[in-house]
């Protein structure tokens, strides 16, 4: 997923095509990183778009053969700070630089050799194992972008029951997806 190609690229600017490919290939990881720095924010997609715009504007300063992801993450980190500043939420979330680095490293490890489509496939397999009502509930929450209270009402649950049900389902999906991805990696 990352770029760091070797040497043959030398120290020249990336071509437009190379740059576009790197940008496209790293969108999922960048979004993951931004969301981890701003959990619960509805603006992560906008911040990713702003990051992309800055990356395009600064395209010439990127050198083929260097780490695109490291460079792009630094820009994303700045965009997150800019968002916090504009939103006047300097102290909103205390993810300091050290934790941001740890998060970035963890994402890199988790995504090494595992693309977004592999995750989607693993998730689809795991969802098939859910009980039908659980499958519908999590689909409703994500497909319809509903709040917990709206979901609770639709499924005739209390808000607390809805929350704990969603937690249970997602914990199960997490374990299942990790297990499937590990099996797939081992099988390679």
């Amino acid at each position, binding site marked *: 997923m990352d770029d760091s190609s070797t040497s043959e690229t030398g120290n020249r600017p990336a071509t437009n095509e190379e740059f576009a490919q790197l940008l496209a290939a790293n969108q999922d990881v960048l979004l993951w990183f931004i969301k981890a720095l701003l959990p619960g924010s509805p603006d992560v997609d906008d911040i990713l778009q702003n990051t992309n715009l800055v990356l395009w504007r600064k395209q010439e300063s990127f050198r083929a053969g260097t780490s695109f992801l490291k460079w792009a993450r630094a820009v994303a980190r700045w965009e997150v700070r800019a968002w916090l500043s504009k939103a006047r939420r300097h*102290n909103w979330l205390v993810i300091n630089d050290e934790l941001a680095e740890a998060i970035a490293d963890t994402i890199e490890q988790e995504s090494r050799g595992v693309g977004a489509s592999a995750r989607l496939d693993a*998730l689809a397999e795991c969802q*098939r194992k859910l009980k039908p*009502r659980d499958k519908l509930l999590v*689909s409703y929450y994500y*497909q319809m972008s509903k709040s917990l209270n709206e979901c609770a009402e639709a499924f005739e649950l209390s808000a607390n029951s809805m929350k704990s049900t969603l*937690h249970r389902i997602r914990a199960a999906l997490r374990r299942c997806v990790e297990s499937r991805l590990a099996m797939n990696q081992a099988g390679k």
Partner: protein
Amino acid sequence: MSISREIECQIQDLVDGHLDEDQQRVLIERIANDPELTRLYVSHVGLDLTLSKSMRFSPAKLADLRQTPPSQPQIVKALLASAAVVALSLVVLRLIIVPDPPPLATFRASPGTVYQLQRAGDKAPEPGSLILNEGDEMTLTQGVVELGFGAGVRGIVEGPAKVVFEKKDRVRMTDGRAFFEVPAAEKGFKVITGDLIVTDLGTEFAIKVGDGSPDEVHVIKGRVEVAPRGHAGSGKVLEAGHALSSLGSDLTVTTPFKGSIFLKHLPDRLPYLHIPGDMSDDGSIVVIGDIQGEEPIKARFLPGKSGSDALPTVEGRFGSAFKLTGQGDHVLTDWAGIGQDDPRTVAFWVRMNPGEATYDTACVVWGHRPQGIETVNRKWNVQVALDRETKSRCIVNTTFGGFWFEGTTSLDDGQWHHVAAVYTGQNLPSGMPDLRLFIDGKREAGEWVWNEPIDRKEGNVRVRTETRVEEGAEPLMIGKPLHDRNSFRGELDEIYVIAGALETEAVQTLWQSNRLDLAKPRKD
């Protein structure tokens, strides 16, 4: 170290944004000091993103649906908003032993949508419930509903529509239009129409039924199998880019493929068309809106006897406005209009000087008017014209063909006035169509006038606006009636056609702000 369920729940709350600042700080500190918790946090962020990606209906911004359930007492009627919901929901859930039938699907509706839901067994619908069960019946009076099912199957149903969930893997659709997107793993569900049985083979396809025409299937991706009802085994496989219509047992593959006219995502308002009175840089007439799905609607100027090369424009109420001279000059589109008794709203700004009005003209019109016959109810025409009785007052007249509603306010004073004609698709207790006229945001008094004989069924006057070209219908025109006399003279601006009946507040917003702002979806 084993991670407690409690901390994993807290991490999920953090990802969802459900913790307050203090709670976040405490948890973040724990995460920062524990690599296992860092990994768990990162995993849940990733899972949340992957779930969103796998389920998101549309890559575009999700509509602001403002769909909080109505607070008024629920009325137990069943209007099935979308056939798609029924079909899709049946496929998804297959429980083996259940004390109660499992839910089959969920749905959401665009603003301005009106629907009724009848539960199987006449059970009372639960307030705010957006779940559909086996045996439910939904009728969509107007608007659009999106259906969601557990395995990623979804559908978009445009009203008016009627759908019944017959069995877990079968839905019946007797009216309306619907688009279905079915992942390959879920192939096999069926949609039954009046004429056809459509079996999905892992695809995207659309269906159009009702309105007096043969049922149609359009395959957008993948394949479907189509068989005439009552003739099992005589079906054919239809591939992407092809369409089929039927009449009885005859399957003919001659229907032009029109996959683009079907909505594929939930709109953030009722389907609409807007001709703002502006011209684009290349001189073409600007037409906006999704009343014909992704298929653009074209409009062109026909000069009649005016001798103009181009459509004259003047400064309008908002931007530019069309100036028509009453010499047969008009705007012709390629959109067929809203047919039968489907609800609709037409709104526009008009300015006319004293003496410019004529009798029996047109501002916004479509449909069919057989030559020489004045009593056939096959058209829809909203006009600002002289009244029939005295031919001296310039009023708003909305006609369906043979019966029309005349307003009372004179409009030819050289000032801009906003006109809105709203037809709900229903009948009043008197049997006349429920038509509401608004002038400058205020409800207009008026009366019905008609020629005999008037077409009634069980006491109700029938509205049967024709949109089929093969039945003689003409598409939407601005400024020229369906006959060759008396075209419109005056200025027109911000012409809207909306596939639904606007409520008073929405008409007033359109008048005040030139913006289509709709009510939350309503269950009748």
